[in-house]
């Protein structure tokens, strides 16, 4: 099973996204919230993200959905930390809107998709049309 990790500056956002994904992807799909700092402040923490990625991996890889700025930098830092500790996990960061991308990819993961197809679903969410403007 592909694991999904949600990285936001706010733990309320990442926890909320996990709750939304669960409604469709079921309770067994691995979706881990890695938002905010250990003490609850707004921010991102590469070590916290590295731990979440490690916990999310079952051997099929992990897809990370991140919000902006340091969420990306800290996730890349987390990948380096895992690498430096010889922890080999296939990890992709989706270039996608965090909410829509998380929902699309967690459903794909739940349906048995692999890391590539989950990444693709997440990134397709970028072009998702919300309004049918005439």
């Amino acid at each position: 099973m592909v694991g999904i990790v949600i990285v936001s500056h706010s733990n309320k956002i990442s926890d909320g996204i996990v709750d939304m994904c669960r409604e469709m992807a079921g309770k067994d799909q691995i979706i881990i919230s890695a938002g905010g700092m250990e003490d609850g402040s707004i921010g991102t923490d590469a070590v916290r993200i590295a731990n979440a990625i490690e916990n999310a991996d079952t051997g099929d890889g992990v897809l990370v959905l991140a919000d902006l700025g340091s969420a990306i930098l800290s996730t890349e830092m987390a990948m380096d930390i895992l690498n430096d500790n010889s922890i080999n996990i296939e990890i992709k960061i989706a270039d996608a809107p965090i909410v829509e991308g998380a929902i699309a990819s967690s459903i794909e993961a739940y349906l048995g998709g692999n890391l590539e197809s989950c990444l693709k679903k997440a990134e397709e969410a970028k072009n998702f049309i919300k309004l049918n403007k005439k």
Partner: protein
Amino acid sequence: MNKSIYSYIKAMADTINENKDFLTQLDAEIGDADHGTNMARGFNTVITKINENDTDVSDVLKRVGMGLVSSVGGASGPLYGTMFLKASNVAKEADITQEVIMNMFKAALDGVKERGKATRGEKTMIDAMEPAYEAFAEVINSGGNLMQALENAVKAAEEGVEYTKTIIATKGRASYLGERSIGHQDPGATSFTLILKSVLENYKN
């Protein structure tokens, strides 16, 4: 270097704490008003992870880098964290000569550039760090001493901070402001310069 590695980290922590509100104010103008808070939280965390009797420079820098990565919270966390971790790798040599310090500085600069993918002129800490490194290396490579190298580096960094007032941010939070970021100095370039200055002061005194 003439003093304990702890004394240098302590000097950095002190200057960050003294300038916490100033750095946050700069970040309020063009960012999300947290740079001082972030940096102070980071340095106050790392100072508890090292002590005065530590002699292994590489190991101290590594603990500082990892400490910053997990406690700063903003973009400056992975950036400053990478800076110290890269310097730590080079500091593994038994004797920290001024050439080794120059190589540590270079590795740190390259690490930050690679992590943030910023180049000079994007209104980031690179605008202070890169000219500072160049000024530092010029002195060392022409046979000058560490004091002179640090003094020139600080001067170049300060000029770099002034330069950030004249340009538009294209990286980080400030990039959302576009042209409105002109006229304001970059918080990260400022904190870098303050840190470098604290190193010089500690070396001198």
